């Protein structure tokens, strides 16, 4: 950077001369090299469309549905469980049915809900790949799929949670759930103190994705 020619503490309101002050170009998606599986996906997709097996619009729609799923759906389930003990019992007995009850289409997964208490903290991982309750939480964060998270959280969960800013006291049992087969897992966090009298919408707002994976706890403010 040519600092002398371009002193700081300016406010960018002046004319921005790109000839003397080039910004680094943000690479376009197409500037990255394609990986093997990306090329495979494009080839198969184009072939399926060409053969008339699926249409481009059907693929677009399917992606739109995937992207429409967000952690807000899981948060609604948690907030309902916090305010309605009968719903909580149904949620813990059959997570998929309890999701359907709130109009969340969970038919493609068998959901197990695990409850955090004063004596038990749950965290979810898929060591073999990246199994995740997508209909309830949407797409997983990149770190959930990383080799580091997947390999470390099973053998040193307390250290990994500390890196997420979460301290689990030694008198609390730490339980890791390795999602290795056909079940998917959602953590039901403990309702924080200070939320007495809150309605469901206000409660749902403090239930983040990471609380429902189990790497953190809901916090006020």
């Amino acid at each position, binding site marked *: 950077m040519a600092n002398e020619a371009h002193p700081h503490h300016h406010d960018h309101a002046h004319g921005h001369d790109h000839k003397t002050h080039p910004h680094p170009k943000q690479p376009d998606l197409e500037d990255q090299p394609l990986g093997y599986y990306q090329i495979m996906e494009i080839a198969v997709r184009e072939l399926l469309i060409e053969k008339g097996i699926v249409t481009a619009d059907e693929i677009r729609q399917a992606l739109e549905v995937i992207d429409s799923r967000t952690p807000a759906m899981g948060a609604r389930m948690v907030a309902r469980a916090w305010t309605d003990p009968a719903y909580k019992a149904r949620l813990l007995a059959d997570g998929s049915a309890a999701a359907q009850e709130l109009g969340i289409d969970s038919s493609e997964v068998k959901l197990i809900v695990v409850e955090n208490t004063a004596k038990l903290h749950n965290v979810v991982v898929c060591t073999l790949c990246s199994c995740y309750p997508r209909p309830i939480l949407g797409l997983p964060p990149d770190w959930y799929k990383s080799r580091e998270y997947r390999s470390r959280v099973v053998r040193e969960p307390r250290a990994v949670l500390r890196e997420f800013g979460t301290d689990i006291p030694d008198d609390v049992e730490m339980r890791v759930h390795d999602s290795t*087969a056909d079940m998917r897992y959602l953590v039901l966090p403990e309702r924080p103190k200070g939320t007495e009298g809150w309605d469901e919408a206000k409660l749902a707002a403090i239930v983040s994705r990471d609380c429902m994976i189990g790497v953190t706890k809901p916090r006020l403010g």
Partner: protein
Amino acid sequence: MSAPAADTAVPARFKPGDRVAVRSADPPGHIRTPWYIRGHTGTVERLCGAFPNPEELAFHRPGLPAQPLYRVRFPQAQVWPDYRGPAHDTIEIEIFQHWLEPVR
């Protein structure tokens, strides 16, 4: 995914509370029993139902009869000899019946 009809499933051998050992095997193919848990002894937490065997599904075979799938709980201190945490910490893993043996 809906569970297959009972007549296409292997009967369940274990119930919650049963002690089970994970087979120490290393067959080729698509295996959903993590390496780190093979050979360890745990306790059945629940039967999850029966599901087509993923080792067969991976090769586009039907995977039937379906295999009972269990959640098995293990003490972390037993799974990892160098585990740094209280003795009450646990790990739960889904394991198919054909990977489990009874512990007397």
